């Protein structure tokens, strides 16, 4: 049975009907056109589908769309109201990403970390990113970019 949900997507009020078994990732990508969260494994292992719900990162492939009723969802698209964030700029400066497929999820995890902890040490950065798999970079250039703006 379809059910209406209302939530905020990157600041915009959304109301739509979903099936109870619809997954948030599919709804964001296929019905709302927010394509930055990607599907890499469909079981919560890789973190490319990371979005924020009420400021906390979640794997949107493991969240049912009906669960976000009344919540605030933010995707990478929602971080850029006033252009690229300092974090994104630092990632560009450090050539942090290669293929870039993991970047949206990685940036959200790093954003969450910096919101909680403005001076994280290297180990804290590594922990914050540990749910986002990257196969290209060896993580080092990503960690370096985060360290660069927190020093």
């Amino acid at each position: 049975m379809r059910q209406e949900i209302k939530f905020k997507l990157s600041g915009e009020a959304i109301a739509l009907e979903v099936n109870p078994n619809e997954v948030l990732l599919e709804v964001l990508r296929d019905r709302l056109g927010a394509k930055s969260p990607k599907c890499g494994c469909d079981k919560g292992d890789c973190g490319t589908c990371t979005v924020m719900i009420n400021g906390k990162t979640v794997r949107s492939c493991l969240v049912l769309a009906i669960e976000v009723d009344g919540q605030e969802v933010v995707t990478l698209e929602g971080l850029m109201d006033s252009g690229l964030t300092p974090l994104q700029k630092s990632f560009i400066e450090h050539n942090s990403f290669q293929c870039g497929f993991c970047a949206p999820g990685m940036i959200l995890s790093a954003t969450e970390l910096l919101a909680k902890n403005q001076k994280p040490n290297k180990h804290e950065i590594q922990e914050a990113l540990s749910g986002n798999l990257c196969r290209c970079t060896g993580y080092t250039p990503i960690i370096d970019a985060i360290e660069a703006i927190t020093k």
Partner: protein
Amino acid sequence: MEENKYIGKSTVRIDGKAKVSGAAEFIDDLDFGPDLLYAAIVESKFAHAIINKIDTSEAENIPGVVKIVTGKDFPFRFGLYMHDRFIFAQDRVRFVGEQIGAVIARDAATALKAAKLVRVDYTELPAILNVEQALAKDANLIHPELRHYKHVPWFFPKSDTNIAHLRKVRKGDVEKAFKESDFIFEDTYTVPRYAHCAIEVHGAVGLYDNSDRLTVWTASQSPYTQRNLFAEALAPLGLSHKDIRVITPFIGGGFGGKAGVSMEILGAALATAVKGRPVKVLWSRAQEFYNTYQRQGLTARIKVGLKKDGTIIAMDNILNWDAGAYVEYGANVVNAAGLSASGPYNIPNVSIDSVCVYTNLPPGGPYRGFGYSEFLFGLESHLNEIAKKMKIDPIQLRRKNAIREGDILNYGGKMNANGLIEAIDKVEKEIEWGKKETSSDPNKAIGKGIALFWKAPAMPPNASSSAFLKFNEDGSINILISGMEIGQGLLTVMAQIAAEVLTVPPEKIRVETPDTDRNPYEWQTVGSHVTWGCGRAVESAAIDAREQIFDIVERALGKDRKSLYLENESVKSKTDNNFSLKLCDFIIAGIQKPDGSYRGGPILGRGMFMPEFTSALSDPETSQGGHPNVHYTVGASAVKIEVDKQTGKVKIPKVVLAVDVGKALNPDLINGQITGGLLQGIATVLYEDMRFNNKGKLINPNFTDYKIPTSMDIPDEIVPIIIEVPQPDGPSGARGVGEHTMIPCAPMIANAVDDALGIRIKSMPITAEKIALSVKHS
């Protein structure tokens, strides 16, 4: 030499903003409208079976199903180097998960549901799950028709066996040299299969429109090779190359897995079954593991003969490769590795048999390193064992035998200029070789290991690259190439190369991913060759544009073209200091003459590169006579590890890698290849491992059970060392580096484990469990 302005600088990536902003589009991000159909695959349950009957009736009755196709709809063979595959299995399946048919439906869930209702009646055959079984006398044949398969002239299949290709190398007189050896050491090393694990899965969308034009969007490293193979495979339907268009958006990692043609053929073929509507095939993570190329398994028997002073005079290697059910690409891995399996050493007498063996496991194929990671595990481990037994320092042993410029390669050619000795020296110093270190924790042991590496691009002798370069009204540039941005930074480096020639900064140059209708030919983005090959094409396109610019200025203004040069986006004259003409003033509009007419027109540079000195023709019994490799990139790597003696867990306090890149066009991007390649290589030795059950089914096709490294698993310190001994035919002297950073990892860690604990582990991976058990039993 003139100072470079853009080459050699760590320019930020020109695709950086697209990637950090989410603007970069990947195959699954493209929108095909409400007409889009989805396909799900009917897969083999068995590793080896005869298909008796396929019953699709129940599946056809599911509402939303549009079409079901099976092997009988596409009885066409295809393959890159050997035509040993069909689009769908015909009468026989050869690995678990092989495609038997496809259900095309309005939505993915319906397609998947219906695919499960397709009934396949099989007669199971004995499955051959390793090379020993495949090579046994009277082994069942996986490909009884092998003798009829079309293949490239440098393959030598053995009819009525499971040997798809045998690369034989014979140099010098090995038998005599072993007789003259003071020491002979022989051992066997094994490497399992590995998965690429790009975070983006494979996908393809095909549209065969009602004007008979086939467009295929793919996540691919090889748009032109795909177009060529689609055209070959689908030629019976009347399709020609001009009617086929392959578009490749950004890809989320390749590592060789998205080279050639694997599942993408389904997107092309299925489109022809539902004319007028786009159809999408997107692999699940599990399919990504079991039905794309896998890195092949290897059993390597290595035999080395030396003089008392440590000079290697003889080597005899037998490499048996578990190449899987189809080897249309993988046989060339076997070939390339066979040619180079003596490693970066000057050995006068060499015998190598590199054997491509069919098994009933998923198809093997290209994976970053293209066979070199696999044979170097055994070779570089074995050299340390030899050094230990002969009481020679392992670095001294390597330095003594290291290949130098002009030394004779296994196929008779000469080794290119290289910085191998410099790499050894720098790595030795940086890792503080010889300084014994002990942990303050008595449960932990510290060890150091080294490995050398080399690799040549494996390419057909006529693999070529081309480029178009278009100026725009404002003096900015679009470069069209079909080399693929797979994360390595190709787009940026191509912009830098053109920038240097035309004095237009890289940020004013746009280079985008390929579309075969628009972008000119590139063979494939593999083998660490595109910086070199595509770079040469872009360089020559930029030079072509520059010459057109000078031509216009000479014709319109009467300036002697020999006096002209470019600086800061303007044409200047060595003989007239006052002359300066901005490119943007004329590169489209032309230059106006006093009578009001114009000279010139849009500047459009064209460049092409083919290594005309290569040849794959050689004596099949010895490999002598051809010139298969364009050049080798070499280097050395060393690691310091800390091992927990009880748990076997390995920590990496420091790793160093020195690679001779010829010329670092963008040092930051090379460092990126080093940090990334090292971690990918380290993971293959410390924990990754594909596990198959006794029926040939992969039992860990997901990231829960096949662990790839997280940000917690990185070395504490990585020291990249760039060495620059120019490659004379490379753009500004550059040669490739993408694969090389991964390939020394396994043996250097094996050597460090031995240094720390006195334990030699001869089979990969070297997991904590394996180390702990070895400590217990030692």
